[in-house]
């Protein structure tokens, strides 16, 4: 957690105070140091959940279901941050808080998906059944991830295409790229730490009647 916060702080201070102004967007572009890491994490967390869901469905790994249940609230939080920061960025660049654009709408669907997963799990008193149903929903919902990723290419949208790509490299200046990379790395570490913390609490709650928990607590 400390390492994550440190990287985030470093990336943000570098990005906000030392990175140069953008030629077109001016200072408003600096929100990317929050928006881009949050958006990447929102998708990665869901992707991680879908891998866990597969593990739970195929090999019946109990821990995988616990991780999905713990990652979902973290996913809600980070997707909300992605949507909210994007909305703030929309005002100076597009002149509107919200646009029914493919990328934004598909991210909103992801947000609702996270909420749906949490609601579904909490509706069943039989936790094992809830775990399996939640896993099925997570696996089916993964179809939304490539839609979000490719939405800016498949539809003509207001949202700009990706500035950093594995195949094509980065199209932004290194003076902006380095703090952005550090912010993404910091956000990833923070999310992992947060996820571990939530999972720990959840496992203790779920296994509260087991002897090892009673001796641990």
């Amino acid at each position, binding site marked *: 957690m400390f390492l994550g916060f440190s990287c985030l702080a470093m990336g943000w201070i570098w990005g906000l105070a030392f990175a140069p102004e953008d030629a077109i967007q001016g200072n408003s572009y600096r929100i990317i140091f929050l928006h881009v890491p949050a958006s990447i994490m929102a998708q990665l967390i869901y992707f991680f959940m879908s891998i866990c869901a597969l593990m739970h*469905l195929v090999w019946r790994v109990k821990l995988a279901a616990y991780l999905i249940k713990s990652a979902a609230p973290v996913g809600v939080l980070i997707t909300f941050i992605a949507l909210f920061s994007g909305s703030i960025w929309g005002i100076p660049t597009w002149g509107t808080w919200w646009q029914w654009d493919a990328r934004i709408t*598909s991210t909103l*669907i992801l947000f609702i998906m996270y909420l749906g997963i949490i609601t579904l799990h909490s509706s069943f008193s039989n936790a094992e*059944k809830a775990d399996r149903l939640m896993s*099925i929903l997570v696996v*089916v919902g993964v*179809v939304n991830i490539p839609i979000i990723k490719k939405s800016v290419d498949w539809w003509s949208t207001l949202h700009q295409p990706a500035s950093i790509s594995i195949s094509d490299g980065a199209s932004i200046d290194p003076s902006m790229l380095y703090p952005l990379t550090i912010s993404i790395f910091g956000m990833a570490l923070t999310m992992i730490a947060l996820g571990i913390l939530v999972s720990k609490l959840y496992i203790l709650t779920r296994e509260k009647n087991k002897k090892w928990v009673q001796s641990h607590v």
Partner: protein
Amino acid sequence: MINFFSLEAFKLRHKLRAWLGPLLIMILVLIAFPLSIDISQYDLNKFYFSVIVVSLLMISFLATESIFSEDYEDGSLEQIHLEEKDFYKITLAKILVHVLFIGIPMALIGSIFSFANGVSLAEAPKIFVILSISTLILFNVFAFGSALSINKGSMLGVVASLPLALPAIVLLGRGVRTVQYGQGFFEVSVLMAGVALIVTALMPIIISATLKTHLE
């Protein structure tokens, strides 16, 4: 497969409320909307499609709300599970019967109402094709939602499956636009048919697994 299909068709045909109810509600919604808004016919024609699309979405959900619940409550699903019959075929038959009895008439109603709101007679069949394919996708998705929330009320089904239906709505919207602007209809309808085929092939497998989880 034909046996399952005939049985499901027989069951649905005798549940008048289950298939006639959604169709009547769709008609009422499509009639009520123009009455509730005071705009010119020209303006109404421009966005009446949206009303058809949204009502199709909501009525599809309503039509599949109890697709499995009755069989679950009277123990039929449990019996099928114990007899180790093919859940996939039963699920597929149920969805296809619902599409045939409710989805296709809904598409027909939608195309008739679009014809009454500015679409030419030549273009109304195109609307029918697009709406029919959409109902196939939507019925599959909402049947999944219904299977997830089989004994937990319909709200949970909506929350769980509506996000999955929204990409289908985006496709439907694009299909409708091709009819409005008179180009690209074939490409979009083929794309939608492809998506519908994939969804129809895969969704019954997922629904079967979901139902088995409820029965275990």
